[in-house]
């Protein structure tokens, strides 16, 4: 079983995920940010499922491993869809909806194809390795997509505070994960990441919940507070 610190981080993270959905409902923004809510609702459900499987079979069991990786792949696809929905919010005023839709489909299929090509030679546990590889690859695709979206926010001088903060939080989340990934690869100290990575899992729902609580859809940023980009 995980230690008390692991459990505290886990429970807090799950509470923050649920808090975002509650805040969205309270602020009447559930449908406006439907895919963000769907992702966090799925994440809450998966978190509860993981807890029961871990409780029944243990952290080092095959059952927990399989459930963890399959559910993680599902959650990563949900996060990808949530990210694409943010593109629709930012580029909504342009006639770029068709580009975004087709680009997202091609990107998802391309990532799935690439992941399959990487694991295709593995006869054993092909589907588990595929789920794992797809999840990892989609994270890096999400990282690049978030930076492109931030570029679009600057270029279009987006002033909707809530949207800007949600995108910034996502960028920080992906960047922190990529940094921890690099740190782990270069240091090889697995134990060091034991608390850092689950704590990062708490950061995203917490920052989104605070954004939802503090700002309304009408809140606007002063344009000068963003980086000035000459047109």
């Amino acid at each position, binding site marked *: 079983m995980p230690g008390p610190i692991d459990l505290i981080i886990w429970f807090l993270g799950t509470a923050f995920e649920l808090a975002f959905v509650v805040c969205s409902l309270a602020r009447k923004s559930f449908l406006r940010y439907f895919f963000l809510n769907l992702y966090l609702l799925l*994440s809450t459900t998966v978190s509860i499922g993981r*807890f029961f499987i871990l409780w029944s079979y243990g*952290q080092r069991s095959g059952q927990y491993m399989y459930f*963890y990786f399959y559910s993680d792949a599902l959650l990563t696809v949900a996060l990808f869809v949530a990210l694409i929905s943010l593109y629709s919010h930012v580029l909504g005023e342009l006639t770029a909806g068709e580009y975004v839709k087709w680009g997202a489909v091609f990107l998802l299929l391309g990532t799935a194809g690439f992941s399959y090509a990487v694991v295709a030679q593995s006869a054993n546990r092909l589907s*588990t390795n595929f789920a794992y590889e797809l999840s990892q690859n989609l994270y890096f695709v999400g*990282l690049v997509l978030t930076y492109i979206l931030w570029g679009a926010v600057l270029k279009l001088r987006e002033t909707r505070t809530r949207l800007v903060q949600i995108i910034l939080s996502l960028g920080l989340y992906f960047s922190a994960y990529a940094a921890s990934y690099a740190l782990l690869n270069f240091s090889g100290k697995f134990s060091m990441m*034991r608390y850092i990575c689950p704590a990062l899992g708490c950061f995203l729902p917490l920052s989104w919940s605070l954004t939802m609580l503090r700002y309304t859809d009408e809140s606007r940023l002063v344009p000068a507070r963003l980086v000035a980009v000459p047109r």
Partner: protein
Amino acid sequence: MSRKLGALVLAMGILVGAMGIKTVLSAKMTGQTMMANGPAPWPIPPPQQPPPGQP
């Protein structure tokens, strides 16, 4: 260039960039790396692929 073709080219560019970043960051792969959703503790990562030519 049609919209679909433009979107395809852009998607492939993003995919290449993302996989490039992953390759750079995992230069010294230890087989224990992972990124994951949510605050749940990690399980044992699935075994990595052996290099070609090795059993």
